[in-house]
């Protein structure tokens, strides 16, 4: 009996959360949550990649751990992929809904008078990042999956560093890589503080969120570009 009551409460709760998530604010919060999740992932990704600049061994060790750990491979990786897909699909859905809500175009607009270019063009910076991600998948992720789970190649804990360096020997690739990170920076310059605002952050934190946002949004993409250019120039 008490089990039935618990199930009923759970179903009711799910139903309420469904209503919340389907509301305009719920969608906004869901978008923000996926953004925060992706930003945490990106920071972690950066912290590992930056080690490749100063220590081949540490980079190999960390990459080997990430590439072979069960929790990372079979739990965190699928969650990450789901998060990426959710963020993009939701971004498109919201864009379509918003275009429907505006419907009529003004003959003359001055968007720059009241908002930043970044905030008005999240869909475009997002699309560049999406195309980068597709290439990144083809370039890094698919060969990695093939190596491990299709070809069942022997486990080589020292292969990661030279594989990474090799990828950055093509100047065109380095250029597109850096270009995408500039767009990512623009995306984050709005997205970082926007996601925290969507979560309802109190105004007492506005200025610290802003400062932290600048540091993250400029520092992180610049760091990724530095890694690419460093390996291109030094090898």
């Amino acid at each position, binding site marked *: 009996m008490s089990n039935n009551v618990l199930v009923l409460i759970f179903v009711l709760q799910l139903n*309420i*959360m469904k*209503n*919340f998530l389907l*509301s*305009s*604010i*719920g*969608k*906004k*919060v869901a978008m923000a949550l996926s953004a925060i999740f992706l930003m945490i992932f990106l920071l972690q990704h950066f912290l590992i990649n930056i080690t490749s600049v100063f220590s081949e061994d540490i980079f190999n060790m960390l990459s080997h751990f990430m590439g072979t750990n069960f929790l990372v491979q079979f739990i965190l990786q699928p969650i990450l992929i789901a998060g990426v897909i959710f963020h993009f699909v939701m971004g498109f859905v*919201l864009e379509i*809904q*918003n275009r*429907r*809500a*505006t*419907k*009529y*175009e*003004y*003959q*003359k*607009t*001055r*968007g720059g*008078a*009241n*908002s*930043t270019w970044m*905030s*008005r063009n*999240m869909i475009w910076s997002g699309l560049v990042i999406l195309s980068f991600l597709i290439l990144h998948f083809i370039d890094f992720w698919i060969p990695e999956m093939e190596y491990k789970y299709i070809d069942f190649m022997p486990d080589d804990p020292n292969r990661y560093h030279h594989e990474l360096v090799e990828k950055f020997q093509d100047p065109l690739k380095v250029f597109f890589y850096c270009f995408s990170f500039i767009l990512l920076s623009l995306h984050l310059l*709005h997205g970082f*503080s*926007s996601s925290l*605002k*969507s*979560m*309802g*952050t*109190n*105004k007492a934190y*506005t200025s610290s969120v802003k400062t932290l946002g600048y540091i993250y949004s400029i520092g992180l993409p610049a760091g990724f570009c530095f890694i690419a250019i460093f390996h291109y120039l030094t090898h």
Partner: protein
Amino acid sequence: MKLTLKIWRQKNSESKGQMVSYEIDNISPDMSFLEMLDVLNARLILEDDDPISFDHDCREGICGSCSLFINGQAHGPDRRITTCQLHMRKFKDGDTIYVEPFRAKAFPVIKDLVIDRSAFDRIQHSGGYISVNTSGNTQDANSIPINKEDADNAFDAATCIGCGACVATCKNSSAMLFVGAKISQYSLLPQGKTEASRRVLNMVNQMDLEGFGNCSNTGACEVECPKGISLDNIARMNRELLKASLKK
């Protein structure tokens, strides 16, 4: 001043509408924008032409009816004012000025520059009030101690005049600044707390039903709002909705 006006003309809600050009001369820089339109209308009437319909009432920035998207900005180029408070001295002799109605799917044009903002009324009706019991035993509001910061924030939120500039200027036609202000105004005060959950759920639901877009925090609304309603009200509404959804 001599000006070229490009004004949106639309016979009724069904017709297509287009921009029509008017040359106008002898405009005093001290006239308000609406007075300038009055001068043009007086001429159109003399010429047996259809005068331009536009909304206005108080002409002192408190009723929120005057709207207009002027040269690409809600209420024109100045800040913290409504169109009736905009003066012609903000423009230069020889300027071309674009005058369009506030646009959003939820704000259909009725005629020329007049739009239907009843969507805001319906949102208000769904919860933007407190059900006061006037039995005679009601406590005097002044005797209820209220934190100064909360009182100030509630009062700031209450200055929203429902003009719709936030929606008109938003690239997503989102009404969240308006709804956020209306929710904050009550939820910060003890009198409004009792119905806070029901209010936020119903008002957000009505806002979505009216077909307004989703907020993406561009902040344009806050800049264009004649009363300086802050984005914090949207953040507060988000918190209130989350709280209410979990409580329900």
